[in-house]
C-alpha cells in the first residue's frame, strides 16, 4: 500500500456554510485531510454529516449564494483550489479530478448520446479531434466493461440499465486520465449484484491507472472491502481517521463504535436485538463549540458539553476527536479500555 507516498490533495480547515433565509446551516466545520498518491480513501457518514458537501466545496460545485466556502487552503498540484478562478477550476474538474455522482439515472443528460457525453471532456480538456475522441470514447466504454462498445456510443442513456449507466459515468470521469477520482456513493443506487460488479471494476481500474480515489459512502461494508484509509464524518467534522484495519478492529470514537454495532451481519452469530444509536444527527445552526455527538453519546461527561474535542492521535496514522482519548480529561475510560484489549 502507498504508505509513504506524498499527498496530492491537501485539505486544511475547510468550512462551508449555507446562508439560508431560515438561518445559517454549518455543513462542514473545519475538515482537514490528505489524499496520497494511488490510495483509496473512504469517507463514511450518515446523510447530513457533510461528506458530499466537503467534496463539492473543494471542487467549487456548490452554488454561491447560498453556499459560502471558507478556510482552506485546498492544495492540488501546487494550486489553492478555493482561490483559483472559475476558468482554472473548469480545467481541473473533469480533467485532473474526475467525479462520479450517486445517481446514474439523473447525472447523464437524456437528450445527448452516451458517445457525445464521453467525447465532451476529451475534446474540451485534451483538444482531441472528433475522430480521435470517438475512438478514445469507444476504448473507454470497453474499459468499463460495456460489450459492443463501438456501436453503443450512439445510444441514449435510457437505453442503458442502471449498472451500465454507472459504468458510463465512470468512463466519463476517467476520460482525461485524472489524478484523483471522487466517487460520491457510486454504488448506493444499485442492486447488490450490480454493486459487486462496479466495485470489482473500480478496483481493477485503480490498479491499471494508478489514480487516487476518494470513495464516499454510508455503507461500512463497502469501505471494509476497498479502502486503504477511512475518514468517519459526523456533524460536518472528521471524528475518526484511521487505516482500514485499525478502524474496524479498534474504533476509538463512540460514534464509530456504535455505527459498527448497528449493522446486522449475514454470517456468524445473529444478535437477538439490534444495537441502536438513539436520537437524530444534528443540524448545526452555528459553528459547534462543543462535541457534536454529545447528545447521542453514552459516555458524554462534563467537558463534552463545553468544548469541541480536537483530533487526538491514538495510534499509527489513527486519530479520534473524542475526549475519552485525552488521558488528562477523561474521568475514567470504562469501555474504551475493553476495546483496547
Amino acid at each position: 500500500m502507498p504508505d509513504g507516498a506524498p499527498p496530492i490533495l491537501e485539505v486544511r480547515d475547510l468550512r462551508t456554510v449555507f446562508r439560508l433565509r431560515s438561518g445559517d446551516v454549518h455543513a462542514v466545520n473545519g475538515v482537514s485531510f490528505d489524499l496520497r498518491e494511488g490510495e483509496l480513501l473512504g469517507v463514511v457518514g450518515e446523510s447530513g454529516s457533510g461528506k458530499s458537501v466537503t467534496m463539492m466545496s473543494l471542487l467549487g460545485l456548490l452554488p454561491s449564494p447560498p453556499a459560502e466556502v471558507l478556510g482552506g487552503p485546498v492544495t492540488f498540484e501546487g494550486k489553492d483550489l478555493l482561490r483559483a478562478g472559475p476558468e482554472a477550476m473548469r480545467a481541473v474538474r473533469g480533467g485532473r479530478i474526475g467525479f462520479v455522482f450517486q445517481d446514474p439515472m439523473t447525472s447523464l443528460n437524456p437528450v445527448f448520446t452516451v458517445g457525445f457525453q464521453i467525447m465532451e471532456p476529451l475534446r474540451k480538456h485534451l483538444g482531441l479531434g472528433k475522430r480521435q475522441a470517438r475512438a478514445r470514447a469507444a476504448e473507454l466504454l470497453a474499459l468499463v466493461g460495456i460489450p459492443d462498445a463501438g456501436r453503443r456510443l450512439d445510444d441514449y442513456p435510457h437505453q442503458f440499465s442502471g449498472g451500465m449507466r454507472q459504468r458510463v459515468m465512470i468512463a466519463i470521469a476517467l476520460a482525461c486520465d485524472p489524478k484523483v477520482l471522487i466517487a460520491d456513493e457510486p454504488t448506493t443506487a444499485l442492486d447488490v449484484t450490480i454493486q459487486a460488479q462496479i466495485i470489482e471494476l473500480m478496483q481493477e481500474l485503480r490498479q491499471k491507472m494508478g489514480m487516487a480515489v476518494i470513495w464516499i459512502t454510508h455503507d461500512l461494508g463497502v469501505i471494509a472491502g476497498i479502502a486503504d484509509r477511512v475518514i468517519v464524518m459526523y456533524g460536518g467534522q472528521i471524528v475518526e481517521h484511521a487505516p482500514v484495519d485499525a478502524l474496524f478492529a479498534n474504533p476509538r470514537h463512540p460514534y464509530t463504535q456504535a455505527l459498527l454495532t448497528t449493522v446486522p451481519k449475514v454470517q456468524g452469530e445473529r444478535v437477538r436485538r439490534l444495537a441502536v444509536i438513539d436520537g437524530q444527527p444534528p443540524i448545526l445552526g452555528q459553528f459547534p463549540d462543543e462535541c457534536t455527538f454529545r447528545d447521542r453519546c453514552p459516555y458524554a461527561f462534563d467537558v463534552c458539553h463545553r468544548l469541541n474535542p480536537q483530533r487526538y492521535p491514538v495510534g499509527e496514522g489513527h486519530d479520534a476527536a473524542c475526549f475519552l482519548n485525552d488521558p488528562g480529561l477523561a474521568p475514567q475510560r470504562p469501555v474504551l479500555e475493553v476495546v483496547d484489549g
Partner: protein
Amino acid sequence: MADATRPLLSVRDLKMHFPITAGLLRRRVGAVKAVDGVSFDILPGETLGLVGESGCGKSTTGRAVLRLHDITSGSIRLDGTEIGRMSQSALRPLRPRMQMVFQDPQASLDPRMTVEAIIREPLDEHTRLSARHKRDKVLELMDAVGLNRRFAGRFPHAFSGGQRQRIGIARALALNPRLVVCDEPIAALDVSIQAQVVNLLEDLQERFGLTYLFISHDLSMVRHIATKVAVMYLGRIVELQAREGLYRDPLHPYTRALLSAVNEPDPVAARSRRRIVLRGDVPSPANPPKGCNFCTRCPDVMPVCREVDPATLEVGPGRWVACHLHDPAVMRGQTTRPFGTMGHRGPGPNPAPLDTPARSAT
C-alpha cells in the same frame, strides 16, 4: 390466536402481468410478467422475508397480495378466505385485517394532513368510534410507535425520515391488522435509524401478534427480522427456506451469488472472501429467457437450463428450490456433469458476458 399451524396467508401460483400496449388503438402486444407463478405460506406470527433485486417483482407481489392490483391469476387465501378474485367492494370489510407500510415515508404521507389526521384516517373509514375514542386510540398508537403525543398536531414535514416511518407504521396498525406488508420500510433511512425502526417492528410484532411480509433487498437486515426467507428473481421465487438454512446453506446459485455480494464490515474477511460476481444484467420481465429465468447469468448453467424451466421442489423439510442442480431426475440424465459434483461446490467460474442486450424489448 388462531391455530398456529394453519397459514394466515396462503398464496398459490400468483401471477400479475401488466399489458404492454402499442399504437393508436392501444392494442395489446405483450405483457410484463412482473410476478409469474409465486406460491408461499405465512403462519400466524411469522415474518416472511421477500428478497431480490429491483425489478424482480417483490413489491408487486406484496401489493398483489393485498389486492392493490387486480391479479392476473392464482389464489390468495387470507385466514381461510379466498380474496384473489373478490371484487374491491367485497374486499372492503376485510381491509382492516391487512395493512401496508410503504417504502418512502416522504411520499406516503399527505403533506397537508396533521399526524393525528393521518393516523385517524383508517379509523374514520372503517370504524364508527366517537371522536373522543378515535383521539384516544391515535394517542395510544403514537405511544406504541415511540412518537411524542405533543406532536399530534404537526405536519409530516416537521419530522425526520425515521419519525415519518413511525407515523406510517402507526397508521398501518390503527385497525389492529393481522397481516402487515412492509415494503422496503427501512431502505430510505440512515443506518443508525434503520436499527431503531427494525427494533420497533419486532416489538410491535411481539405485542400485537402481527404477521409480517417483509420486502427488502437488504439481506443482512432480512436475516435479522425474518423467520423464513423467499428469494425472488425475475417474477419467480427461486428459493424458500427457514432463515438458518438459507444463510448457512443456500441452495440456488442466485442466492449464493446474492449472499456473496453482501459487503461485511470486516476488512480481514473481505480480503479473504471469494465473491461470486454475476455477469450481465437482469433480463427484461417482458421478454424472459427460454428455460430457467436465471440461465443468462448463472455461473453453474447447464444445457438443460436453457431448454427446460425448473420445477420448484422440496429438497428437504421446508427447503424449496427451483433449480435443475437440485433435481435428481434431471441430474441423473445429465451426462456433462455428474451428480456428485453439484452439492456445495465453491463459486465456479462465470460464463463470458452474454450479448443479451440490457435494453428492454421495445
